[in-house]
């Protein structure tokens, strides 16, 4: 009797102890099979190369580590062109350290597709096919362009992209990130010419905007009042606005150009399971929701979990460039943009 009681108690205690574990495993299934998760935890680390802003990326890693504290993500951030050179050189020397590479220019990533292994997240079918240039590369981050202004200096903010051509917003009041800066700015420039107005660049350049090399210094100049208005990536200004910076943000009524990034797991990954688990989490509803809510990203999921504050897809139409045009038009159009805006290349 005593023995039976002890056995039953032991089974009961064991059941109680293992129940949460089973429950947790169930909740983790959407990020990968139990085998993948176990293998990833065993690897315990992974190396991520990204062209995204380092601070933003740290936030994503922190959120991932809330789910999987056992996996340490080492980050290497470099500007787009430099990142590609490093990846190519390391790979050729047989010393590619990255397990995951994440880049804003899908065309450049397509060019090094061979370096990546076959990989698809568990929810692959839920993604818009056009957002991925290859079956190995996935839109882990999807950034959207907004129009931001300094609320202390602009009392009559623009409402649309076309408003940015009005003489009242010049000269030197608008900050403009140069078109050849990278994948995101090239998307914006295509949108301006293809969707807003075929002569948009000429009209906008006539307001004599201040040119910036990338989004980040533009957002800083906007906060400081060096420029008053700027077309800018939403994720470069939303965190600042939340922290209390004098910034107002809107989405132009003509639409919102969107740039899906490209991320993949390298063939030579030393931590392939941790890499896949990281991407699975980032591409899951939970990961995408985090990036939308906390960072101001959009998503390339067919059905977004929700949209960032201030963005209503019923009012503002999302615009993703056709990938073939994204590649083909690049050189000729960028040269034209440089000429119109007087940018010396």
């Amino acid at each position, binding site marked *: 009797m005593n023995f039976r009681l002890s056995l039953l108690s032991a089974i009961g205690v064991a059941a109680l102890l293992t129940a949460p574990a089973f429950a947790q495993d169930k909740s983790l299934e959407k990020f990968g099979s139990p085998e993948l998760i176990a293998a990833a935890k065993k690897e315990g680390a992974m190396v991520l190369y990204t062209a995204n802003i380092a601070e933003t990326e740290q936030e994503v890693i922190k959120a991932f580590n809330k789910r999987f504290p056992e996996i340490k993500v080492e980050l290497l951030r470099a500007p787009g062109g430099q990142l590609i050179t490093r990846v190519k050189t390391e790979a050729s020397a047989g010393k590619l350290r990255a397990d995951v590479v994440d880049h804003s220019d899908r065309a450049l990533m397509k060019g090094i597709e061979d370096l990546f292994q076959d990989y698809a997240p568990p929810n692959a079918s839920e993604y818009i096919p056009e957002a991925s240039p290859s079956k190995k590369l996935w839109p882990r981050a999807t950034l959207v362009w907004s129009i931001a202004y300094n609320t202390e200096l602009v009392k009559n903010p623009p409402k649309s992209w076309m408003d940015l051509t009005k003489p009242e917003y010049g000269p030197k009041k608008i900050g403009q990130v140069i078109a050849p800066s*990278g994948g995101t700015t090239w998307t914006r420039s295509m949108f301006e010419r293809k969707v807003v107005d075929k002569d948009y660049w000429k009209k906008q350049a006539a307001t004599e905007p201040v040119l910036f090399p990338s989004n980040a*210094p533009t957002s800083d100049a906007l906060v400081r009042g060096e420029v008053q208005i700027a077309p800018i990536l939403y994720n470069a200004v939303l965190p600042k606005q939340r922290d209390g910076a004098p910034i107002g943000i809107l989405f132009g009524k003509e639409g919102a150009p969107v740039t899906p990034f490209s991320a993949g797991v390298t063939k030579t990954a030393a931590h392939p399971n941790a890499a896949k688990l990281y991407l699975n989490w980032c591409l899951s509803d939970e990961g995408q929701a985090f990036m939308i809510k906390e960072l101001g990203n959009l998503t390339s999921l067919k059905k977004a979990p929700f949209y960032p504050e201030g963005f209503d897809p019923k009012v503002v139409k999302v615009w993703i460039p056709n990938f073939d045009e994204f590649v083909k038009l690049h050189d000729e159009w960028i040269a034209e943009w440089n000429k119109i805006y007087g940018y010396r290349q």
Partner: protein
Amino acid sequence: MAADTTALASTIGAAGTEAEGVRRERWRTIGRMVWSTLLLLILTFLVVYPVAMLLLGALTNTNPVVDGFGAFHLSLKNFTTVLENPNVHLALFNSMVACGGGTALAVLIGLTFSWIVVRTDTPFKGFISAVSMIPLFVPPLVAAVAWSILASPKSGLINTFLKWFDIDWRFDVYTMGGLIVIFGIYYAPYVYMFTASALRNMDPSLEEAAEISGASATKTLFTITFPLIAPAIISGTLLSFVVMLGIYGIPAVLGTPGDVPVLTTYIFKLTNWSPPLYSTAASVAIILMIVTGFLVWLQQRVISAKSYITVAGKAFRPGVTRLGHWRYFTLGLAVIYLFVVVILPTLAIVVAAFRKFLFIRNVASLFDMKQYSLIHFERLFENPLAMRSIWNTMEVGVVTALVGGVFAFAIGYTVNRTNLGGRKVIDVIATIPVAIPGLVIGVAYLWAWIGLPGGLYGTIWILALAFIARFMPDTIKALSTSLLQIHRELEEAAWICGKGMLGTIRTIVLPLARPGVISAMTLLFILAIRELGSSLFLYTSNTMVMAVLLLDYYEGGNVGITAAFSLVQTILLAVLIGVANLMSRGGAGDGIKQAN
């Protein structure tokens, strides 16, 4: 018979000694050849091989590691494209004007302060000496950010104050004039370092003779003192000019808004576009190499034409000019310099580091304490990379300073104090890196060293090697100035006393050159800690350094954290340099005592 035996023995003995002498001489010759070959081999690895990679990059359109050495076609197309490009002409012209003007100002400031500190009775000289060196600790990016906060035409703090005082005039640092002034005030320490050490080590007998002959203090200064320390002035001038040529942070922050492109910002653009244009960047870099190569050649011609030996075996204390009431004027100059170069920019950085946002509507808003917090420091130290980058940087800095210092001393001594074969070649090769901007040589180091067997890539050693190679010319120049000033009679005296070459170096040269050696190592340490360009391609996720993280924060558009991190970096450096400075002074005293 006994006499005969003695004569025979002495003849045999003499013959034996002669044979031994011949044998010793032969060994010495072999030793010299081995030494020269060893130095040349190390230099080939550190300099020739990466530069060859750079040239290959400029002459082809390939990445030698990716495309393999066989798969390229040599052509001058990149050069012709670059030379025909009017934007390159403009960038080259702007670089020459900005760096030329900046150097002139740096020489004026550096020389004035070294004279004030070493040769006048101005009060608080220790303080002035420290002040003159402070700008060296400030990374160029930080200096530029500080001045853009202070003197941007739209939102600059100085202009906010001018507006408050109803003064219509505005400062605008986003201009060529702005670039020249910022370059000049921040690179004056290079001139100061060279000239102060030369003035301190100078035998004052010629100056005393001039004074006895009735020459005025000013006349003595310009006809005796400055001409005597000409190698130091020329070295300081050249170094500050070429360092300015290779700086990215200042023209990037101040030149970009005002549309004043220079060669480094142009090269950075080339490496940053999608897709990156490295071959074109390498070609632009070759233009920079030609310009600086010419200047280095010119400097060597000027220095080798005359003798500048001013440190001999005589005890001396450099004379001090009594300035009377004018000493308060010289003190005033130092205070103004301190205010412009240290206090104002530090205040700007402190405001940026502690203020939540940098929008400052008016003077009242500047003092609104609700706008200040520790949030940027909290975020900085929340990032695990911050602490790791500090530790990595210190490690790289120390390794670079020690290994680089020893290697530079070996080269400096071989070139300046021996007549070994191949020393001219060693000198030329060791000077080459001065002419290559870090942004471009960084990728050449990557191409050159990544394929080497062993685990060099991904360690701090690859960064240290790059810094040792890149800053070798600066370190050797800093050392050579001290070495050139030591009279050969001191070494000859040691040889006569039976000391060998190494013994002479240990007991005579090193103690006398110790201030120079320590200041050269300190310089190397500072340069290594600040170096950004060549780090960009060589750091990995494990070996992140402060300069790269600082650029990350700046590029991330977060001036607050950039400023907070700059403050941390500046304080760390100031402490370390203070320690080195104390060691250097002790060394100078000991050196003189030992020489006596």
